[in-house]
């Protein structure tokens, strides 16, 4: 049976929801559900979980590109059939996890994973992403598929992870470092609570295509979309259109989302802002937002060297200066922002001082600071 376009509602099935998760559990997971007692990282990327029943499951975590062809998924299936009785899972951070219930099955699988490379030479299945290291960078679509990006996503992530590769396959850092990328302020990737966040930013206000506005936009929605009320209705040559008070624009792009006749992407204006010190875990300190470290780095395809080297520098300073268990934000809280900018040699500029809503809650209201 196939879909019949002449009778689209015939035999229609809707609202069935996702397939039930339990059918995809390997037997060792199903049998020990809720009975796990403790875990340990045997080596970077390799974990053992031990059950109250004495059962063990060994997991090998490999970094995956979030963007993945069916060819790679089929190769993952081949590996899972060969080593894991046909089961596999993905993590929230786009890693792939292969699980076996017997330690003897571990090394052959690891050797197999390590041996597989793309024609271009890169590893297909790098093992790591555990413990006090850098795990996979979660990211958005970028120039590959999004209509509002200020930057690419996959290419920057590839460039950064090539540079930080040793920290993906190692665990030398004071604590885990979570990096995330979002290609515009919409932040589909929710990067706002990451140890290091890479964010695409615009720096030029939208321009208005007056002859298109009334055809493709709902004018009141475009006006309402602006958080700073910078957009007003106007008439240009008898055409209903919009006007932007440029000095009020903070380049969020929300108007463009509502009105395609207000593009703001621009090669000279767009680029990367870097943010540091966010976390979501409640361990020790409470969850925190990432704060601005570098307001703007130009787009430098194909390898984004300035962005890559700036992130590398932050990671190295953190690695040498933070105490064990301290996340990036906890380290900065201890040493102070004046020391952070000094040690990382990042320029402190007027953009770092908040002038948006509630800005005064971020100003220093004490005589306590460091020389």
């Amino acid at each position, binding site marked *: 049976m*196939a879909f019949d376009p002449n009778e689209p*509602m015939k035999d*229609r*099935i*809707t*609202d*069935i*929801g*996702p*397939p039930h998760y339990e059918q*995809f559990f390997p037997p060792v997971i199903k049998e020990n559900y809720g009975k796990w*007692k*403790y*875990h*340990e*990282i045997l080596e*970077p990327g390799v974990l053992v979980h031990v059950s109250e029943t004495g059962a063990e499951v060994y997991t090998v975590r490999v970094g995956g590109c*979030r*963007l993945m*062809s*069916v*060819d790679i*998924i*089929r190769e993952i*299936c081949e590996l899972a059939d060969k080593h894991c009785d*046909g089961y596999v*899972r*993905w993590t*929230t951070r*786009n890693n792939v996890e292969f699980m076996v219930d017997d330690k003897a099955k571990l090394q052959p699988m690891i050797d197999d994973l390590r041996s597989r490379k793309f*024609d*271009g030479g890169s590893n*297909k299945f790098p093992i790591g992403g555990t*413990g*006090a290291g850098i795990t996979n960078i979660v990211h958005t679509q970028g*120039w*590959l*598929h999004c*209509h509002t990006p200020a930057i690419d996503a996959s*290419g920057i992530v*590839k*460039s950064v992870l*090539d540079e930080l*590769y040793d920290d*993906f396959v190692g665990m030398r850092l004071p604590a885990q470092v979570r990096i995330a990328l979002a290609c515009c302020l*919409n*932040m589909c990737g929710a990067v*706002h*609570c990451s140890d290091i966040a890479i964010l695409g930013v615009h720096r030029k206000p939208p321009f208005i295509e007056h002859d298109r506005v009334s055809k493709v936009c709902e004018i009141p929605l475009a006006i309402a979309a602006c*958080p700073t009320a910078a957009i007003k209705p106007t008439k240009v040559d008898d055409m209903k259109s919009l006007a932007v008070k440029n000095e009020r624009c903070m380049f*969020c792009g929300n108007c463009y989302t509502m009105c395609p006749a207000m593009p703001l992407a621009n090669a000279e204006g767009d680029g990367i802002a870097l943010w540091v010190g966010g976390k*979501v*875990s*409640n*361990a*020790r300190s409470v969850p925190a937002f990432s704060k601005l470290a570098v307001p703007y780095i130009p787009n430098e*395809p*194909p390898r984004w060297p300035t962005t890559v080297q700036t992130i590398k520098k932050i990671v190295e300073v953190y690695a040498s200066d933070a105490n*064990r*268990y301290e996340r990036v934000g906890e380290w900065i809280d201890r040493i102070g922002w004046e020391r952070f900018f000094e040690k990382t040699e990042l320029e402190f500029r007027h953009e770092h001082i908040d002038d948006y809503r509630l800005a005064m809650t971020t100003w220093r209201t004490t005589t306590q600071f460091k020389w």
Partner: protein
Amino acid sequence: MALKHKTPLLDELEKGPWPSFVSDIKQIAERKPMCDDLLGVMEQSYVDKEGHWKHGGIVGVLGYGGGVIGRYCDRPDLFPNVAHFHTMRVNQPSSKFYNTDILRRICELWERRGSGLTNMHGSTGDIILLGTTTDELEQVFYELTHNLDMDLGGSGSNLRTPSCCLGKARCEWSCIDTQAITTDLTNEYQDELHRPAFPYKFKFKTSGCPNDCVAAIARADCSIIGTWRDQIRIDQEAVKAYAAGELAPNGNAHGTGPAVLDIQKEVCDLCPTRCIDWDGKNLKIWDENCTRCMHCINVMPRALRPGTDTGATILCGAKAPILEGAQLSSVIIPFIKMEEPYEEFKDFVDKMWDWWMENGKNRERLGEQIQRMGLREFLKAVELEPDPRMINTPRYNPYIFYDPADVPGGWEIDAKAYREKHQA
């Protein structure tokens, strides 16, 4: 077969140790013209430093108001095979375990009816089938529902596909059954997931413990985070083994192997409420002062475990910056058991959504509405009493919006009687 477009810039991304998405796409581009043109349009963006995709336009499958993201190339003259390049969001099984049979069937379907490219997975959690044409959408949906027992996820002003950590499936810390909760909510709210009736998007995310591996507190309008009310379970012998260097601290996250753990320095002194005492023989936790941050449990996973009176803390309002700035979720229900059939929780959800749908402005997230109207109004709507666990500090401004019902006599004043007492 030679590829159609020269891609000298993208070719640079085939180098280096991290898996190359360019190598991956090049491989499939040899047999999929859509992928060939996708490499072309990507290279064009690398030259121009600007994207080449247009606004979505209305595409979808009949009867659903979400799950398909329309996408058109703004240079179909140069890249005709990606003139349409729509995305379908497919609801993932909770916590993303698969068998190879279902994965191969997804691959077969998507190679035949789409680009053969995916995201495993999108930020919200769905399987993303990336790139197909308008005429394939109904076909893919038909095959998904009839042959794969799979369904589309959410997009637009819908409930978005709920997601969770792997919970009890392979974690010793999960205080709630994250998969069961996520699957139950997804099935309960299929109508909200598929047919837009909200002011804007709404996300549920469920983490099993306060380590919050799915970032529920930062990303979900309603964050469900596992916790406990009783005592941390202690195995004193294992504590001594950590102190003696017989076990690897922090689950060996630092790769030290078995090594002496300085319990005073690495556990007690880093406890945010300093509620742990260690005398070299015995570990004492003053649980009444514990805020369940997870640090001590993370560092000594073989000695310490969450308590057994488990449930969840419900927090609301997290979102990314657009529109009014990023927010973290705030505590609304300090503790709820979260056991099937989750009636108490669903009752809360009904009240929350009623209030939001009645009062929310177009494209206003729940967190923004709470900020605009006040947490008090939200608590009234969901019929919860104020609790100090909901705040970091009481207000420090004196501008209180009193309700006339709370003041004897209300706000009706007898002006004549007033002036009889007080001459003007």
